[in-house]
């Protein structure tokens, strides 16, 4: 469809990237800075009919806002809104207020005059800030904002590139559920999220972000409601038209330069012709969106439960039986156990943080291999540090230091970290590492006391109780670990049973 459109517009070369499109000289009218106040507003200013008569000036009566329903059946467009000036004489088929149109009738984009200039500006300022960390969106709210930003970015250049064309195509382009009078105030707020939603819903079928977005939308709407004058709404309308068009024409030029997103140009008012052009130009939006879906926000796990489970209830050594090797082979005394535990803790923190930051940017298997490599690098540093600080312990641990870092604990938490926020990953690493270190130290101390009657090197031998040497051997270590694990499970089941009993008693 893009090709067809582009053919219609001879002056714009085919396959012209959006950057060039934006580069097409856009005279900046005088009033542009005044209305747009800033880069966006300046860009928005367009010389053509838009300013002259087609679209209302800043003081013009409020444009009618049309909003596409919250979501169409494709899940692509959630909230497409746009406006059309009520007195759009040049727009023959300008939508009528309250008219509900079927989206199936809509071949192309929609142009719309503007609304809410100043309020839109402030809102966009808000949005622009998080646009930078788009890929590393932390919370769901954050991600929803950059997504909205994306939609604006995508739609804008197209609107700019579009010389006036196909003015008559406006009316059919009205989306379904268009209720102008009802949604007039909501439109500008909802519009920017359209293509974002399209991207998100197409790529990430995640309920949480959607909920967050809808919340945000609801928050924004009241702020926009009171100022329905020309302004960003036009751009919003463009974006909406573009996204809607994207809906109708799913995939076109798949190779869209990413630079496009950097260009933000706004026109004071979007004409129907422009909108149609926008459609032609921005048909690639969905494809680009599919290439770069906004990353789903990584959930944060509650820190308290992480700490509790890592240290106590799901202790990796006692319950998960992760790290049998360091326990049995390396932790023969309290000091070596402590050193080995700290080695694991350090490696775990580093790898968990890295895994959370990398996330799904790498294939899982490659990421795991990378994490192991990272753990091994950390273990090399640990080995050198141990040799410098505690040479005797380093000798006792020997080759186990590198292996301790590469032991199963590193990978066991990696998948959790990759799916969670870095802060949660750090807390989890600290909790698991601390729990592991504590359990390992306890294990080492018990083993040391039984096997050699010393405690961290201090002699605590008792008359008549000879040391049991077998506990210094791996066999004794395995036996002790099995007994400790069984005891820990016993305590846990007892505690749970008592909790359950108390709850039942309360009931």
């Amino acid at each position: 469809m893009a090709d067809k459109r582009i053919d219609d517009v001879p002056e714009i070369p085919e396959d012209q990237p959006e950057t060039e499109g934006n580069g097409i000289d856009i005279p900046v009218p005088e009033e542009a800075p005044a209305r747009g106040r800033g880069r966006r507003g300046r860009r928005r200013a367009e010389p053509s009919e838009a300013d002259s008569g087609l679209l209302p000036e800043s003081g013009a009566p409020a444009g009618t806002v049309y909003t596409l329903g919250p979501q169409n059946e494709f899940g692509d467009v959630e909230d497409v809104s746009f406006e059309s000036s009520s007195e759009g004489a040049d727009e023959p088929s300008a939508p009528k207020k309250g008219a509900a149109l079927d989206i199936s009738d809509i071949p192309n984009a929609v142009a719309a005059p503007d609304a809410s200039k100043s309020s839109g500006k402030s809102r966009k300022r808000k949005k622009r800030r998080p646009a930078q960390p788009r890929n590393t969106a932390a919370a769901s709210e954050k991600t929803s904002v950059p997504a909205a930003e994306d939609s604006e970015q995508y739609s804008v250049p197209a609107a700019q590139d579009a010389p006036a064309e196909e003015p008559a195509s406006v009316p059919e382009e009205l989306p379904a559920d268009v209720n102008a009078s009802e949604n007039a105030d909501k439109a500008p707020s909802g519009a920017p999220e359209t293509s974002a939603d399209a991207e998100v819903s197409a790529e990430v079928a995640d309920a949480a972000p959607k909920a967050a977005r809808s919340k945000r939308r609801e928050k924004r709407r009241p702020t926009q409601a009171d100022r329905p004058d020309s302004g960003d709404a036009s751009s919003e309308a463009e974006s909406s038209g573009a996204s809607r068009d994207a809906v109708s024409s799913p995939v076109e030029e798949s190779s869209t330069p990413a630079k496009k997103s950097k260009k933000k140009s706004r026109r004071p008012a979007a004409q129907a012709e422009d909108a149609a052009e926008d459609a032609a130009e921005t048909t690639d939006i969905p494809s680009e969106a599919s290439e770069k879906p906004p990353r789903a926000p990584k959930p944060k796990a509650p820190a308290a439960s992480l700490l509790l489970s890592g240290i106590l209830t799901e202790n990796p050594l006692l319950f998960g039986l992760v790290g049998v090797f360091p326990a049995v082979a390396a932790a023969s005394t309290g000091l070596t156990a402590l050193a080995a535990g700290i080695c694991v803790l350090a490696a775990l923190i580093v790898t968990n943080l890295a895994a959370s930051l990398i996330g799904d940017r790498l294939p899982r298997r490659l990421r795991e291999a990378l994490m192991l490599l990272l753990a091994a690098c950390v273990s090399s540093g640990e080995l050198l540090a141990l040799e410098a600080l505690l040479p005797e312990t380093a000798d006792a641990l020997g080759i186990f230091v590198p292996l301790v870092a590469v032991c199963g604990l590193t990978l066991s938490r990696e998948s959790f970290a990759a799916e969670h926020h870095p802060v949660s990953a750090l807390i989890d690493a600290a909790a698991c590492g601390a729990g592991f270190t504590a359990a390992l130290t306890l294990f080492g101390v018990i083993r040391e006391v039984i096997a050699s009657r010393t405690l961290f090197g201090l002699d605590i031998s008792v008359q008549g109780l000879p040391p049991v040497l077998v506990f210094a051997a791996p066999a004794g270590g395995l036996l002790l670990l099995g007994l400790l694990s069984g005891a820990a499970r016993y305590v846990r089941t007892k505690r749970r049973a008592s909790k359950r009993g108390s709850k039942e008693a309360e009931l």
Partner: protein
Amino acid sequence: MSFSQMLTISLGLILSENIVFSRALGLRAMLDAEYPRRTAWLTLRAAVGIVLTAMAAWPVDRFLLSPFGLEAARAPVYVLIAGILELVPELVLKKAAPSFGARFREDRPFLLLNVVVLGCALTLSEICPSFAELAVGAVSAALGYALASVILSSVLRRTRFAEPPACFEGAPLALVSAALIALAFAGFHGLHF
């Protein structure tokens, strides 16, 4: 290398210094050995991996790391070698024979990027001065691992019919069983040639 040396190394690594029972390497994977065929498959792969990784890592250690005093960097280098040995054939297999390569995806945990494989490579590169000794040692370590796997999995299968206390079911019982087998293997410590 004389025959007696070879015998010393091989018997030592298979019996008296069994990497599983005297160093607890790779014990974790055996503790939940449920399915014999799968266990055998994993053991075979790990055994091959032990031999390959040790042999690939030895020249790197001998000619790159040791001459420059970089013994501390053994771990990352060995991880790199094992990763290459594991991932590259996997990718090649996936491309060449997707149906066969798909089998490798089942094995979620890395087999070569494993404590067993890395531990064997690290241990052997320390104790084996020559490549021949290392080759014998690697094969012996792999055999010892396979032996431990067979014994442990068969014992663990029997423990499924036992009725231990509830809190000892599963991993604690497996650990205690492994401890008893390790104690038995400790009896080979008196073996000298």
